């Protein structure tokens, strides 16, 4: 404010500083310089222990805040789920029907009509695992991108750690995926696979994949709020990712077509890794791109990098989300 006043008085070559200036001040009665105290507003605030509105909390502090809001995150996720299905007659039944229809479409096209990959045993189960696991990440990316932009009203009105929003969006998808997994297990059993101890591997896999997805969702939430155009590109990016993740055809096709660094890039694809691991857990004899031990290490690294990286990236933008 002081600067703006001096600039108004530019003609006044020798602008007096300090207390005397209040006499020259052209502003109304409020315009009194911090006379005797000489205290700047910043210092005044600091002395009285005021903190800057919109100050970024430290990462541990932020994590603690987020943890304290876990009930809100859960309630928000449930609320979103019931409000999304609230207009339908069947309501929550759709949570089960959606994955069944999803699998049904692929079964009719690839299993009955095209009868592709007859050489592979149980291609239908192979396909469905890929579709379901991929769908999990796809929906997190989609809802994560909208997590900030579609809740601006709430962000501008209430105070809560903003990461609650992409987290609750991811939580909705994790719940959906759990239901889908039950459907998937049914499909796998119906197609003649035995129940084995290996099925238990689905639990750590779900954990890693969820962690990966939460990070990715947070990344997309901040990125989507900054660059709105990205929403238009996501369908294409996701389709590209779908074809690169060996969902609709056997993973061995990559090996016959690519080699060297190209193959390495394709096989480092995190979704390919998660899908491969799910297949190796559920199917009896399945051809994998890499041995399971390597896949597990890759999956863990991806989850940690994307999970933590996405969270840190989102936290850095915490105070800017209200701007829109």
């Amino acid at each position, binding site marked *: *404010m002081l600067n703006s006043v001096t600039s108004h008085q530019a003609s006044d070559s020798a602008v007096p500083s300090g207390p005397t200036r209040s006499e020259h001040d052209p502003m109304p009665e409020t*315009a009194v310089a911090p006379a005797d105290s000489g205290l700047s*507003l910043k210092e005044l605030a600091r002395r009285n222990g005021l903190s800057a509105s919109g100050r970024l909390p430290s990462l541990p502090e932020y994590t603690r805040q987020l943890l304290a809001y876990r009930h809100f995150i859960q309630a928000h996720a449930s609320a979103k789920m019931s409000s999304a299905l609230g207009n339908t007659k069947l309501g929550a039944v759709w949570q089960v029907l959606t994955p069944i229809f999803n699998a049904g479409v692929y079964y009719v096209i690839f299993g009955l009509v095209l009868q592709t990959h007859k050489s592979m045993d149980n291609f239908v189960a192979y396909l469905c695992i890929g579709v379901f696991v991929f769908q999990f990440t796809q929906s997190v990316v989609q809802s994560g991108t909208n997590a900030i932009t579609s809740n601006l*009203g*709430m962000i501008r009105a209430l105070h809560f750690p903003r990461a609650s929003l992409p987290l609750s969006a991811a939580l909705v998808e994790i719940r959906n995926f759990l239901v889908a997994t039950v459907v998937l297990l049914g499909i796998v059993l119906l197609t003649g696979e035995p129940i084995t101890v290996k099925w238990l591997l689905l639990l750590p896999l779900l954990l890693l994949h969820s962690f990966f997805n939460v990070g990715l969702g947070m990344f997309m939430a901040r990125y989507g709020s900054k660059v709105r155009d990205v929403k238009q590109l996501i369908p294409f990016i996701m389709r590209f990712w779908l074809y690169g993740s060996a969902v609709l055809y056997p993973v061995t096709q990559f090996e016959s077509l690519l080699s060297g660094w190209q193959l390495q890039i394709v096989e480092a694809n995190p979704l390919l890794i998660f899908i491969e691991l799910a297949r190796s857990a559920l199917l009896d004899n399945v051809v994998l791109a890499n041995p399971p031990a390597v896949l597990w290490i890759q999956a863990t690294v991806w989850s940690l990098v994307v999970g933590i990286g996405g969270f840190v990236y989102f936290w850095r933008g915490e105070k800017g989300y209200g701007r829109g």
Partner: protein
Amino acid sequence: MVEIDNDRTPTVVADEAHIIYRVQQGGGTNSSPLASFKRMVTGSKGGNIREVHAVKGVSFVAYKGEAIGLIGTNGSGKSTLLRAVAGLLPVSKGAIYAAGQPSLLGVNAALMNELPGDRNVELGCLAMGMSPAEVAAKKQEIIDFSGINDKGDFSSLPMRTYSSGMGARLRFSIAAAKEHDVLLIDEALATGDAKFRKRSEQRVRELRGQAGTVFLVSHSEQSIRDTCDRCIWLEAGTIRADGPTADVMKEYEAYTRR
């Protein structure tokens, strides 16, 4: 520029605060693909994204126990300033300091329209940081206060079926259920019918008793005169006057009559 009273405890300090927010608008004046492409190539901002410089260098100090009215014509940046004090909108230049976490009590807190009123009460309370036990204890009180159940069981109906007055009343009741250090009230007193207005003014007085400092944005001169001892007059994003309510109101009235 700002007088500092060393005897009183400041609760909110605004130091040369500028607030700029971006507005995304569909179907602007020049939204043809060619124009958009030109903008992208030349790197000019224009088009869909417009920046609104809503608050331009505002400085003030608010003290404990004060009730400050923010006045100004429509679009002068009052609500934007409140949101920045609450930390909901980032300050682009300068700074705003506050004691504790200021809470904004507004009528347009977005809730989920598909959900029934009582679930919205739970969600809103959780979003304000209450524990589930507190929410369970306060839920009925909030619904009773809002009076939405006066004409039948509306709290179990989706909020989209509510009249705008009922929705506003419920939102106000949720926000007013919590006690605050620095309380920011945005036109909340103007919601609902006369009966509810009386009840909400009473509630605001109670909250003022508990809160350190109250800011009130309102177009109702009466409620500003009734509740505020100090007034800040914002016009086009800058402070035109800051002082005792009676003085500032007189100036403001002279200005608006012109």
